């Protein structure tokens, strides 16, 4: 009897502390109205709307979408997964930047050290590399999905063009990253790839010169492609992604059912 009473008292105390915390100014200033973390954040149609509306998510999603648009079999989540992979590659990429110097021969030795000296270093590098390959795939599959649904038709014509730019930027991101390990695979794959660009008529040589920072790939190319890979191309990509997502909403969300 006394035991039960004691537990009840403790439970009340803990519960009271929880309520006190959730009603505090700090808590309610962080979690905006509608959030399930709030004391008044129960499940109701109003709060379901608020979860999106009172949240940074409102930049990505409206409060409501067409029912068929959330069917996994329609979009296969390919666009969303591409975006998620971009974020994952940014996070893992920042981690790799802590341990990587874009100079020869340090670049190669840093990658070797990553596998032996750094906690989870090899795992993060693996995730970065396989994630990049998968992202090329998901972006390409996203494009085919959109084509087969005719989702590039008015009013979505321009968003298809933005998507093509993003596909190109994805390939460029992957290609510039390809050189950074500075091993035989990186060097010669990039040599073969850039040689193709040098065939361009009239200004092919100039393009090639600017791209690799010389007449052939050197350590200067490494620094140049590193800067492009971690700064310039992601910067451009983020801008076009913002336009892409904004247009998806402005053009009426996921295209209609077939």
């Amino acid at each position, binding site marked *: 009897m006394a035991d039960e009473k004691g537990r009840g008292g403790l439970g009340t105390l803990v519960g009271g502390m929880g309520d006190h915390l959730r009603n505090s100014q700090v808590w309610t200033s962080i979690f905006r109205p509608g959030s399930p973390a709030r004391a008044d954040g129960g499940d109701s149609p109003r709060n*379901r709307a608020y979860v999106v509306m009172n949240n940074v998510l409102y930049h990505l*999603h*409206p409060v409501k979408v067409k029912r068929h*648009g959330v069917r996994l079999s329609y979009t296969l989540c390919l666009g969303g997964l591409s975006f998620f992979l971009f974020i994952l590659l940014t996070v893992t990429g920042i981690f790799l930047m802590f341990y990587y110097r874009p100079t020869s021969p340090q670049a190669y030795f840093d990658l070797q050290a990553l596998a032996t000296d750094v906690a989870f270093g090899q795992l993060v590098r693996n995730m970065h590399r396989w994630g990049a390959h998968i992202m090329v795939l998901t972006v390409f599959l996203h494009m085919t999905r959109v084509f087969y649904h005719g989702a590039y038709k008015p009013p979505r014509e321009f968003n*298809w063009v933005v998507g093509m730019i993003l596909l190109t930027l994805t390939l460029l991101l992957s290609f510039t990253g390809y050189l950074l390990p500075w091993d035989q695979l990186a060097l010669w794959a990039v040599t073969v790839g850039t040689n*193709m660009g040098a065939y361009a*008529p009239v200004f092919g040589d100039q393009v090639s010169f600017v791209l690799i920072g010389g007449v052939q790939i050197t350590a200067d190319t490494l620094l140049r492609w590193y800067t492009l890979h971690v700064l310039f191309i992601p910067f451009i990509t983020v801008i076009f992604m913002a336009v892409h997502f904004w247009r998806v909403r402005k053009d009426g969300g996921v295209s209609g059912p077939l």
Partner: protein
Amino acid sequence: MAQLPENLLRRAAEARAKAEGRPVEDVLAEMKGEAAPAASASAAAPVAAASDGGGRDLDADASKFGVPRSLLERAMFARAKADGTAVPAMAGAGAPGAPAAAAAPSAAAPTAAAPTGPPPGVRTQRLLTVVKAGAIQGTTKEPQDKVNVWPHLLAIEFVALLAMLAFLTLLSAFVDAPLLEFANFNEQPNPSKAPWYFLGLQELLAYFDPQVAGVIIPTVGVVALAFVPYIDRNPSVRPSDRKLAISIFTVFVMGASVLTIFGSFFRGPGFNFTFPWRDGIFFDDLKTLLE
């Protein structure tokens, strides 16, 4: 009683007259709460004609144009005021809203020579247009079948995200990214292959001149792909209506895939043809996975 537009009133009167087998005018007058039109019309019309010869039958106009009588009256007042002429005598019954006034004018009309403006408190305005009732009704949006993003869409996205993260983590835990020997400018590996997503193009280089395979085909391909929405003007999204578009795109996707797979797995030393099951796979992107 709310003032009904004359045309609606008339339509109702016609329907009722048809049902009861009575003359339309009788029913209309009854609905307006007036005496039978025969009496007032016969009394008022000659008077109007006598006063200035320009009297107009507002009731007739109202039903003819489908415009409420009160508006016609107001317009007439305004026009008279603007022209500086006397208001023409009104024929027919009084305004529907004021049936009591209808009796008096029959006597007063001959002497009411110059009521120069609208009654006090009435704002005059010109009638620009009359929107019929049918045109402004039925504009409500078609209801769409919608669901809340939270939880329906966000839950799916979150699960997809977790599945991708789990797959990637497991893959990375078991398969290392390749790291070959240190870059050596003096020793080109054989074969030298581009990153896998360019292997379709490298495969094309085996068939065509570099200008064609390395420049023209990819440039034309990317530009044509970017302009797809402006080339394909067919508005339908039904697959049965887009056989040509789907065929062309499928040929493109299959062609790119076959070339890429061919370049990845069926090309060996010297970029010569090889069977992967006979000579082994020369594809360093997946070197660690295949070992």
